[in-house]
């Protein structure tokens, strides 16, 4: 029970709340005290009052309960039969802000490498962290009305543009003075990986965005320290003023609202959040269920869209060719997203964001409930969770005493199919969509008219009634039915009842009767009393789609697509007997030999082995090799392979953007590939930090990683880095010549050394001095460069022409480090002795040539000359297709230049292992090494042979017979889904993006130079 004192204080607070705006005309002093009584009140997700009263004074809830003493003077609104819910909150909108202007790309424009600088802004045009969006807020009456109809009373808003998007605000959805609507002028920062409208090149890739975010937080830290030191000691170089960076420094422990476009990027963002120690709330894509367990493990909150796709187009067998299993699954599974996350106990809120039609919001949430989502969680996701996210849990989100009077009046449980939102109140100001005291005329009635006993049936929605009149077995539909708050009028053509012409009716409801008038065709008016004989029973929605929904015919796998798995293969205990074993060791090729694989490792190699409990595989006529290793691959990478914008980008990391969903992982393991080095493309002299992976199909991004490897980095020389083949507009970035490549590399190596000495000098200072000295800025680019110069990160350098190969070796020698591997190195044969003397290894493509000028001297004998001179030589693919045939490619060295088969197989096993510095663990068949093996049906070098089984970590990841079963399973599941789609009667769609379908995987090439973000944004704008 609320104390009288409190009530008094509240009343004082509001009446004394004279605000700054001077009145124009007569002052308004209408009392605002209402009691909504007899309603079922859902106070919060966990508390419901079956019948009670809600008292509202001056926009605030002053009392709520089953037995409330209604204050004197209150206007009482009888809500018998109605349910009151707390007003919903949408935490992710652009409400009240102008649309983002997007400039469409012009292909002949020169690339813009530097930012357009205005004011004290960031070097990067995608950083708007200093934006305070409330400054541009204008209420949008039409949009507010649309949201209010859905029960949404408050929203958090900022413009969805850029990586750091600035501070949002929280506002009520009402009209009136903006100043009185804003609940929180400076709410969360919004952010994403997408650079949005920025025309600046960097970043053009997902890995670039991640690197930029990392660096920006370091910059923010430096900025604070630098200015602090400068204040203490102005006798040093003045630090710059940079408002976006300063704004990032002020985030502290606040959460950032982080939007991603797919569930893998959500996990990437979650990982980044942990790394930066900045909490994120994630705005999802609708695919979260595919990684529900992983999201649960992060413990972070997700904002869920309830955009569900229309079925993929399968009307004809021809259309269906463009539809894959993943699409069909998404269509079936998307409405279960929230349900699956609830099962994993992920905390989430709902948003209208991404909905094709905002009006489908509640409809789609109800669909989630039919899929098993609890009403309690659904309500929390609409109220308390978003209120907490916005930091306004004490103001909004429940109907507890003291909170703002934001509520919804609904005719029944809001989560059932036919429920209607009658009204939504914001700060007590109620907006009716259906009069809250609307009389419900619906039901079955009997009446007497012109000597006949008629039956009247009224159904439909409460304010849009349909109905019919019956006389024995004859019936006629009602026309022109209009239900106002308390009067119902309609007409009917009663010819078949023996009353020719149109009769008009006007009735009121009086207890269980309808009382009124009928005006017969002859204009005779007859008093009318219709007696209620039965209630209105809503007809359940029994569309084919709803029925079909009950039975799910698809599976959720990882990846959630064709060939996906539900679990990783178990650790095998296998004895391969009597095979020809290509050891890639000094033992060479052993005939009739056994290999025992246990506990993930190669346990024994020898003749006549036995092992208890081991499954025996007959290796007669089979050949066994170590797993194939590819030094140069671009599979399993998301969001572009090149951040080829700045001249050097070693701050970017392939390991940040692994894509465990790439079908080429599956295809690699079918080809006996067990390790791949994933490299950045070749668009700039220093690219990203590389990532070595094993193609463990079904593992997460982190699960793909080859643990504890020596860091490596991609470098590149030649035509690509000097942009020779990119078109005439690409002539503004240094370097444009091989001379320039050397010079700029020298410059960055030198800078890295100087960076090191700057830090040494700073670190040598005493604590007091440090405080007064501006520290060197932590620069992830130079730090990564320093790792190269210090020989701790190993170089894999894309190169063709021998002059550039020689150049890099000499430059490295000048700085005292070694080039680990020249990759492609098509003219390595011209400098084989020099390579050997430097200590570089070589990884080449075999017989590709003449596709560009710098490979005009590539020869297929390259490998032999280098191998003969003692250079560790391997063969790489640079292609998901060729990557499946590396052993066949190795055989070409047997053909073209007489290499021994033993050496040829080493070029795809132990030699690349040496180059990746993992030869102590993989690359040969030797007891103690990882159980990475391939069983071939013949000589592995022969064109007639193929892999039958691939072991990774002693697990059978590929078995040719299991694959056959998977093919059948795909067909069966697809067939069932296509049938379901065909019989569902729902409309089909080809607009993949808007429907939330995943983008197609792209097979990246070294030379791809997309602006990934611009492409994304244009696609989103036009599709």
């Amino acid at each position, binding site marked *: 029970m609320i104390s009288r004192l409190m009530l008094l204080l509240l009343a004082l607070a509001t009446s004394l709340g004279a605000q700054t705006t001077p009145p124009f005309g007569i002052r308004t002093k209408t009392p605002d005290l209402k009691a909504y009584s007899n309603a079922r009140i859902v106070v919060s997700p966990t508390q419901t009052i079956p019948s009670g009263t809600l008292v509202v004074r001056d926009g605030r809830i002053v009392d709520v309960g089953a037995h409330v003493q209604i204050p004197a003077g209150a206007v009482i609104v009888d809500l018998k039969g109605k349910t009151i819910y707390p007003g919903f909150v949408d935490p992710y909108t652009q409400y009240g802000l102008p649309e983002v202007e997007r400039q469409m790309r012009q292909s002949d424009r020169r690339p813009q490498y530097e930012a357009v600088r205005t004011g004290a802004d960031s070097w990067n045009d995608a950083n708007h962290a200093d934006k305070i969006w409330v400054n541009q807020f204008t209420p949008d009456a039409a949009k507010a009305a649309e949201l209010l109809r859905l029960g949404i009373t408050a929203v958090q808003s900022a413009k969805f543009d850029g990586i750091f998007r600035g501070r949002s605000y929280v506002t009520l959805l009402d009209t009136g003075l903006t100043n009185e609507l804003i609940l929180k002028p400076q709410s969360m920062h919004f952010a994403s990986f997408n650079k949005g409208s920025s025309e600046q090149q960097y970043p053009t890739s997902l890995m670039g965005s991640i690197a930029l975010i990392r660096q920006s937080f370091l910059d923010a830290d430096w900025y604070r320290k630098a200015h602090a030191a400068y204040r203490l000691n102005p006798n040093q170089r003045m630090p710059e003023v940079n408002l976006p960076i300063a704004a990032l420094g002020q985030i502290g422990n606040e959460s950032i609202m982080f939007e991603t476009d797919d569930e893998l990027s959500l996990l990437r963002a979650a990982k980044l959040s942990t790394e930066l120690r900045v909490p994120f709330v994630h705005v999802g894509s609708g695919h979260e269920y595919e990684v529900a367990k992983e999201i649960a493990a992060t413990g972070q909150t997700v904002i869920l869209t309830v955009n569900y796709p229309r079925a993929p187009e399968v009307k004809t067998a021809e259309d269906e060719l463009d539809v894959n299993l993943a699409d069909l699954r998404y269509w079936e599974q998307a409405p279960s997203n929230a349900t699956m996350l609830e099962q994993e106990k992920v905390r989430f809120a709902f948003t209208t964001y991404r909905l094709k039609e905002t009006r489908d919001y509640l409809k789609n949430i109800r669909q989630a409930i039919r899929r098993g989502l609890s009403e309690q969680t659904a309500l929390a996701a609409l109220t308390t969770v978003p209120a907490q996210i916005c930091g306004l849990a004490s103001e909004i989100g429940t109907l507890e005493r003291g909170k703002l009077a934001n509520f919804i009046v609904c005719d029944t449980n809001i989560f059932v199919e036919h429920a209607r939102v009658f009204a939504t109140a914001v700060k007590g100001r109620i907006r009716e969509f259906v009069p809250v005291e609307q009389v419900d005329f619906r039901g079955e009635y009997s009446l007497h008219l012109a000597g006949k006993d008629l039956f009247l049936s009224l159904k439909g929605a409460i304010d849009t009634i349909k109905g019919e009149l019956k006389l024995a077995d004859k019936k006629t539909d009602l026309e022109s039915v209009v239900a106002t708050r308390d009067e119902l009028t309609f007409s009917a053509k009663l010819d078949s009842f023996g009353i020719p012409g149109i009769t008009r009716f006007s009735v009121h409801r009086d207890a269980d009767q309808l009382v009124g008038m009928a005006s017969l065709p002859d204009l005779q008016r007859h008093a009318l009393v219709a007696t209620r004989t039965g209630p209105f029973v809503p007809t359940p929605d029994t569309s084919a789609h709803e029925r079909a929904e009950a039975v799910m015919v698809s599976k959720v796998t990882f990846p959630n697509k064709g060939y996906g798995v539900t679990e990783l293969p178990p650790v095998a205990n296998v004895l391969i007997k009597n095979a020809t074993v290509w050891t890639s060791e000094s033992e060479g090729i052993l005939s009739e030999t056994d290999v025992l694989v246990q506990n993930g490792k190669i346990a024994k190699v020898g003749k006549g082995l036995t092992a208890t409990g081991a499954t025996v595989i007959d290796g007669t006529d089979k050949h066994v090799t170590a797993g194939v290793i590819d030094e140069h691959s671009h599979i399993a990478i998301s969001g572009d392979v090149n951040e080829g914008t700045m001249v050097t980008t070693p701050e970017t990391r392939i390991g940040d953007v692994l894509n465990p969903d790439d079908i080429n992982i599956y295809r690699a393991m079918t080809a006996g590939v067990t390790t791949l080095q994933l490299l950045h493309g070749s668009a700039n002299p220093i690219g990203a930090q590389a990532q070595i992976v094993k193609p463990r199909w079904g593992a997460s991004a982190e699960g793909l990683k080859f643990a504890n490897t020596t860091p490596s980095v991609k470098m590149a020389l030649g035509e690509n880095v000097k942009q020779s083949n990119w078109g005439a507009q690409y002539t503004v970035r240094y370097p444009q010549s091989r001379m320039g490549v050397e010079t700029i590399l020298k410059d960055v190596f030198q800078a890295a050394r100087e960076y090191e000495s700057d830090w040494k000098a700073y670190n040598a200072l005493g604590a007091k001095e440090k405080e007064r000295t501006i520290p060197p800025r932590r620069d992830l680019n130079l730090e990564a460069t320093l790792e190269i110069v210090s020989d701790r990160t190993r170089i894999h350098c894309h190169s063709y022409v021998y002059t550039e190969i020689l150049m890099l070796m000499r430059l490295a020698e000048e700085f005292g480090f070694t080039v680990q591997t020249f990759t492609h190195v098509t003219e390595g044969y011209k400098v084989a002795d020099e390579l050997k003397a430097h200590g570089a290894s070589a990884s080449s493509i075999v017989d590709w040539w003449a596709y560009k000028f710098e490979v005009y001297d590539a020869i297929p004998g390259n490998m032999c000359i280098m191998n003969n001179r003692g250079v560790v030589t391997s063969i790489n693919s640079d292609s998901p297709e060729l990557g499946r045939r590396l052993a066949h490619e190795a055989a070409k060295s047997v053909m*073209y230049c007489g290499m021994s088969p033993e050496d040829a197989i080493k070029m795809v096993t132990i030699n690349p292992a040496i180059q990746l510095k993992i030869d102590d663990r993989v690359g040969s068949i030797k007891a103690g090494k990882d159980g990475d093996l391939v069983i071939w049906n013949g000589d592995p070098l022969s064109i007639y042979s193929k892999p039958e089984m691939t072991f990774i970590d002693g697990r059978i990841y590929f078995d040719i017979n299991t694959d056959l079963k998977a093919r059948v399973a795909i067909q069966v599941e697809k067939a069932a889904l296509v049938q379901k789609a065909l019989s569902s009667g729902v409309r089909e769609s080809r607009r993949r993006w808007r429907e939330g379908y995943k983008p197609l995987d792209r097979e990246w090439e070294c030379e791809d130079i997309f602006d990934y973000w611009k492409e994304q944004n244009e*696609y989103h704008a036009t599709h």
Partner: protein
Amino acid sequence: MRHIRHLLMLVVLLVSTGAAHDYIPGAKQSAPILLKGGTLYTVSGGVLPNTDLLFDNGRITQIAPTITPPNGAEVIDVTGQYVYPGMINGQTQIGLVEVGSVRGSNDNNEIGRNNADLRAWVAYNPDSEIIPTVRSNGVLTCLVVPGGALLQGRSSLMNLDGWTREDAAEKPVVALHMTWPAVAIVDAWWMEKSAEEQKKDMDENRAAIGRLFEDARAYWLAKQADPRIKIDSRWEAMLPIFTRELPVIIYADDYRQIDEAVAFSKKHGFRMILSGGKEAWKASELLKLNDIPVVVAPTTSLPMRHDDDYDLAYRIPGLIAKAGLKFCFGTFDSWSARNLPFQAGNACAYGLDKETALRAITLSPAEIFGVEKDLGSLDVGKKATLIVSKGDILDPLTHGVTLAFIEGRKVDLDNKHKELYRKYDAKHTEIPGK
């Protein structure tokens, strides 16, 4: 920036005019040559171990277990080696493309939708450095096909040893080439056009093809009525398709494209050959019914569709062979033309028998291109266009061409790659240890 590997280059390097290989074309056969004791892969008549083969004046004159060398004959002992007909590559751009990214060295593409009047051999460069690297692998004849959109032009069948296009031409005009418009909706972020726009484009392209052939037919009809009508070079080039003298090779991979293309060929009454054909196996009944052969695109490619079997591309030749279709292999490129036998070999690991594989790079393409009287098998009367290999040519492990003859002319098997190999194998740089 979109995928721009093939965009215009700033610097135009005139490589093709600067590059000419140094290998002198073989002289016309002046004396009979007897290959003694080889294992003959005749293709037409099985494998003949320990059999002699005699050719004279550029033609095979005798095949027998033992042949007495005629007077003045050169006798070459090929005991233990395999003799094959020269391999025929069913589609290449050899002689038209020297260095892919160097615009000035490329003569494969013309602008516009209708280039029926182009002929590949006009630009074919017998001096291309690529040619010797291809023939030294035993690929002696290539169909050279113009690129471009829609109606690309007419292909020429060229042998890979000649001074001029006249020497090198086996058949100056083989077929009219056309690319069937795309049918698959690609709704991906790198695709600029929406699904609706793509559908519209597809319909427009189909209509455009229809109009082209209707106009060509109108010209053909008018020409029959009055041979003196003004000459339109494009329609003129298309005349022989209506009399079925000139086949039309249509590039199509997707089942729907193939289906549409076949219907189109029937409607307009021309002889169709399918090229590409990744989903030909899905349309095999239709192709068989209409007697349409297939030039199979490189099978060393990724599966077309996400859910496809990982080895589907490799299995295509086996699948269409099983369906009874006639087919040959093509490499569809310039420098990679030398990998033709390995395309065939690879298919053998995935369901194709070796005999059919060999036929698909020899006699089948000869039949498809109408030169089976001269090429494609070891038969008396055919041209002595043949190779000798130390082992099975389909597998790089055993492949090793030791001799090659084109119409009896001895082909120089040296090439730029072997020369560079020799040069740098001889380079020894003493470098003091680091």
